[in-house]
């Protein structure tokens, strides 16, 4: 599903350049649950953004679902992203001016789904995450855990084939974090959704099948987790 070849990402500041990713090659298959770990500044988030087509590599090739994403137009990449990828952020990134309902509806609007279908889909996820009562509240009226539930719900409302989660539990206390991770695990196991998460937390790293460790923008280690079924 994901095929990264020699991906490099660097930023130029005058004459000096910062290399965030150095020749990273990585493959993620359909249905995998991959955890990316590494210290701060090792390039985890950037890698995730590139996978999610929110950022472009400076060099290298990226094939997503067989399409050469590095060569696609912005419009085509946005379309790929819109169809197949759900994003979950550490800081939730809900839109402050929209209610829970409207936040959930937003990705559907961009997919040009009809109103009746939107209502049905939103009702389904509200029900599934047991947040029906919160649908008319604004994000700042919710707890962090609830906000992140909405964030996850928004990511999967389009029935994506890939969920990218950037430290989804980073701002949550453990019981909330467990809930979120259980949701991701369930999605992966029951619906075959591919999950790539970034985390610092060893316990949550163990939810996946495979751990990729980054250090200074390089893949330091890439190993399967013992007992995993992959």
């Amino acid at each position, binding site marked *: 599903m994901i095929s990264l070849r020699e991906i490099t990402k660097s930023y130029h500041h005058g004459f000096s350049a910062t290399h965030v990713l150095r020749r990273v090659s990585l493959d993620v298959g359909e249905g995998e649950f991959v955890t990316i770990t590494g210290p701060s500044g090792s390039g985890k988030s950037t890698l995730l953004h590139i996978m999610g087509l*929110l950022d472009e590599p400076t060099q290298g090739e990226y094939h997503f679902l067989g399409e050469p994403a590095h060569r696609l137009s912005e419009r085509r990449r*946005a379309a790929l992203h819109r169809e197949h990828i759900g994003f979950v952020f550490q800081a939730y990134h809900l839109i402050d*001016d929209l209610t829970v309902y409207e936040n959930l509806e*937003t990705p559907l609007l961009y997919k040009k789904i009809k109103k009746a279908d939107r209502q049905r889909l939103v009702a389904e996820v509200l029900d599934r995450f047991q947040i029906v009562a919160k649908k008319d509240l604004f994000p700042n009226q919710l707890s962090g855990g609830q906000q992140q539930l909405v964030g996850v719900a928004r990511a999967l409302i389009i029935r994506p084939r890939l969920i990218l989660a950037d430290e989804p539990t980073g701002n949550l206390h453990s019981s909330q974090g467990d809930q979120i991770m259980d949701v991701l695990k369930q999605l992966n196991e029951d619906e075959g959704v591919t999950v790539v998460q970034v985390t610092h937390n060893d316990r949550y790293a163990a939810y996946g099948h495979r751990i990729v460790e980054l250090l200074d923008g390089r893949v330091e280690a890439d190993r399967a987790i013992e007992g995993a079924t992959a």
Partner: protein
Amino acid sequence: MLPNILRVAWRGLWRHRAFTALNVAGLAVGMACALLIGLYVQDELRFDRYHAHADRTYRVVTGTESTAYEGIAKVPAPWGLAVQEALPEVEAMVRLRFFGETLVQRGAARFYEGGAFTADPSVFDVFSFAVQRGDPATALAEPNTLVLTETVARKYFGDEDPLGQTLLFDNAREMTVTGVMADVPPNSHFTFPFLVSRASETDSLQYAWNRTQYYTYLRLAEGASAEGVAAKIPAVLRDHLDEETAATYSPWLQPLPSIHLHSNLFREMAVNGDVAYVYLFTAIAFFILLIACVNFMNLATARASRRAHEVGVRKAAGAGRGALIRQFLGEAWLLSGLALGLALGLVSLALPTFEALTGKELGGLLWGAPWSLPALGVLAVGVGLLAGSYPAFVLSAFRPAEVLKGTVPGLRHGRLRRGLVVFQFAVSAFLIVAAGVVGDQLAFIQQKNLGYDQEHLVVLPIRSDALRQGYQPFKEAVRAVPGVAGVTASANLPGGGDYGIPIVVEGRDPADTPSMRILAVDADFIETLRMDLTAGRAFSADRAADGSGGAFLLNEEAVRQLGWDAGEALGRTLSMPVVGIDPAPVIGVVDDFHFRSMREAIGPLAFFVPPPPWYAIFTVRLRPDGVEATLAALEATWTQFEPDHPFTYSFLDDQIAALHAADERVRVLLRYATGLAVFIACLGLFGLAAFTAEQRTKEIGVRKVLGASLPTLVGLMTREFLVLVLAGVLIAAPVAYLALDRWLDDFAYRTPLEPGTFAVAALLALAVAALTVSYQSVKAALADPVDSLRYE
């Protein structure tokens, strides 16, 4: 998608109410201003277009051998008839001639009515005046008949039907009302209280081939060319005049709808508009709207750092760039729609004042015209596009990966934002300077020494032939009134009343003689108006030989153009054969004085003492104190001589000020426009200062903790904006200098462009900006640093 965009937009706008209010208020004031100016311009452009055949109706005007003016708006009466007879292209023709101010009476209702015309019966064929009573085809066919406008009909007849009833003219003449028409629409280049039939004219002027007294309009057949018709007129004239005389005329045709804005001939029927002012105000409206749009862009990009997050999230949720552009434009349109609503409210409030200021009726244009709704829609969409496109395209280009990481790309646009502020204040400063200079010039005109003493001069029109003939006894009686310093009778006055009569200088080729303006005055004129003599003497009542064209005075300019010095002029012989004035000597030279508007240079001028039938006006100089009592005494004297004519008077300086009424109007409008432009620019600056202060909260906190004083902090934040305002002023100054120098060059007598005006404009712009910014600066500087630093 659209309802969603609007809902989201509305919520965002409501949440940031202060921001929204600033934006909407600025846009609304800008739009209201543009709308008002738009109405003004529309009205100027639609003059005389309401006539059904306006597109093929023309006025015949002519150049003459006189070079003092481009041409005269009137032609001799027989021209119209001859042209109509000779040229099949001429479908209809009408001639209008001013009917002098007349005392009109019916029972107790008794008023002087000025500004009426005599007209051919075809007047209602050529012009589309709405005749309400009577038969338009025959209403003006008979002698001593007239058609009243509605207002005048009501004035004399109330609710009665005036048709067939009579009005008494000048205590002597019964005039029968044969029609009533709607008032002349205000967007007409001429107006009148009533029209008198041509057949009522008692003098022989309508047969005179050499007296240009008739405003003549032609309706041409469809497809006929105006140039073609104009080219044939000289041949028609040659059939009736000798070759030499015919050659002195150079007639042309003016399209009816262009007269108001494009014609500025001698003896126009009323002061026309000026297309230059139409351009000027269109430009001002555009710039004010632009300033308001810039506010919008500025505030929106300043807010971009906040919206960047939303852009990132939406892109992560699958939004393409197009969808985001639509969203931001949708918001802009919502704002501009709100602003338009508010602007319409403001316009309705301001309309009565604006109408009074411009002397126009504009309400119908705003609400009644079929195109006004679509036009307003286009305005809202256009302004939304102009104001919203920059934020839409900038914000939608944000990279989600960057903004979601917390990088604030908004800061990158600081340079553009500063540029826009500079632009706004450049425009504002330009307008401030313009308003200042226009004000200076008009003050200069009003205070300029005219060359005679125009104050305390009361003008009394002569109302009867008896008084005209017996003017001497009346003068004596007036002179005896306490408080009167002098009195003179004349045919005309300075201030535009001068005649153009060909003058013959003995021993000089007429082609070589400058065309001179003429004042026909009695022996007390020079003394009463307090004019000075360069050489020779003034007319004297004691010398009978001076009277009835027996002597001439020239002004210095006439002497100069004749190539003499003042001494050489004395004793030269002049004559005016056209009006039967035989050769007579020049007895004195009068110092130059202004007898036209200040736009015109002083031209050559001659005075002579006419026979008594010429006299039309008494001019009385009052002593400065007790003016009221003197006027009352003058009225008593008048009533003694003229029991049948009510006493009326006017002040000469008011008449002279009226020469500059159009400029005065421009001055007032410009002042309003400038105030609004500065206000809108400051509104934007206020918002921008708030955002900057917010962005710098942490910096200010740190500085405060490090011991910076309040004035230091306020200065720090204020200075940055003042530099921008100053830059704007510096850019505006040379542009304003060039533009206003050109405007001033239109005046023959102009004030110099003072550096002081520019300095005052700069200081004003800076002071207003400083005041605007300092509120936010002080607020930010007073904030408790603990609060601003806690969250780090």
